[in-house]
């Protein structure tokens, strides 16, 4: 428990927990858009199940954020009543679904990131984060098994499927830089043993992604200079539309319940 944390330390922890929770929430909302639209029933179920796990992670993390902040905000307050610039997810999570291949590429990139991050965070000095991470890592392994399996099938599939996922990889790759762009907050969390060091996560992520890309016969794009910083609240325009849809009901009818 982190009940004893106060002042600037609590502020930093709050922002860090929001980064994690917002990534899960935004990606969960995106995956939910596939419900009823996936190419086959099995994929509809697969994407919806991963979406549910993401929302589950977000609920645990945003509830914890409320406790760290200690001003009475609930998971719902964080999800439905914050603005665009208050969301702290990496921009990759909010990128549109595109075709099934693009959704799979986004999922592989984030699944591999969450897996390497959460497996290490299971040893966090913050007991609550350690518990959430250990629980989530087990589930994320199945997410990556699903998304990685599809990446290989599509990449090493037909000419058409190969071309589409390769193109999606080029579209989304620039946003991966942000995942590992270590800033002061990432370093402070690592110094306190709350989070793993991002360069360590990057080495493991690279290894996993390179293996998958090789098996999928896909070429790894070059890293390019990156200017977005969703982790600090600077988002692409896509997040605004996503939030408009997700928050509409609570904005129009504040406090509405099922």
């Amino acid at each position, binding site marked *: 428990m982190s009940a004893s944390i106060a002042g600037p330390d609590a502020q930093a922890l709050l922002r860090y927990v929001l980064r994690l929770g917002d990534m899960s929430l935004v990606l969960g909302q995106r995956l939910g858009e596939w419900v009823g639209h996936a190419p086959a029933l099995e994929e509809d179920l697969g994407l919806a199940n991963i979406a549910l796990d993401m929302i*589950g992670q977000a609920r645990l993390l945003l509830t914890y954020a409320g406790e760290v902040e200690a001003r009475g905000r609930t998971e719902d307050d964080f999800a439905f009543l914050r603005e665009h610039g208050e969301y702290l997810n990496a921009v990759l999570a909010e990128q549109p679904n595109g075709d099934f291949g693009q959704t799979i590429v986004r999922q592989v990139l984030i699944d591999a990131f969450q897996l390497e991050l959460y497996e290490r965070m299971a040893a966090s000095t913050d007991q609550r984060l350690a518990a959430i991470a250990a629980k989530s890592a087990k589930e994320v392994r199945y997410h990556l098994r699903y998304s990685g399996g599809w990446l290989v099938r599509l990449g090493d599939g037909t000419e058409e499927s190969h071309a589409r996922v390769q193109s999606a990889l080029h579209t989304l790759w620039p946003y991966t830089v942000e995942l590992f762009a270590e800033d002061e907050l990432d370093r402070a969390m690592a110094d306190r043993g709350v989070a793993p060091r991002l360069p360590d996560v990057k080495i493991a992520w690279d290894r996993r992604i390179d293996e998958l890309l090789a098996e999928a016969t896909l070429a790894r794009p070059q890293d390019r200079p990156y200017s977005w910083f969703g982790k600090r609240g600077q988002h692409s325009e896509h997040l605004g539309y996503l939030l408009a849809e997700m928050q509409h009901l609570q904005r129009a009818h504040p406090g509405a319940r099922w």
Partner: protein
Amino acid sequence: MSAAAAENRATNAWDALASVEDPEIPNLSIVDLGLIRGVELRADGTLEVALSPTYVGCPATDVIRRSVELALAAAGVGAFAVTSVLSPAWSSDWITAEGRRKLEIQGIVPPIETASSMRDLLRHHQPVGCPRCRSIDTECISEFGSTPCKALHRCRACLEPFEYFKCI
């Protein structure tokens, strides 16, 4: 309260919990699934029932919690509190022998591995035997089935689809 009376309340609570079925897998109780981490009497006389969620986003979690509260109230175990335990994370290793038997009866293949042998889940594919014809010539159609805890498989020998309770 005497030790015998406390023991009695705990026994009644366990009996009540054993009657709570998983909403997605009827006949399988939450005790069979290994979701109950403990039943303990607090100093203030409240009976604490510790419950593990299976998957973080499983919609059945809230239903299970409510069913537990109703069952404990109906059993008259006195003051109780249901707490949620995240750590250690629930594992399919905790499904009881009875639970595995009940899964099989319903045509759901119980986990064929333990969570510790699943470290390298990504490279590791053990064949899952068909619950109908016992062939091991089967394939995984999807890692996710009707619920997050199950995967969809298909038997190439008898051509029937079946569900597999994932190892986690």
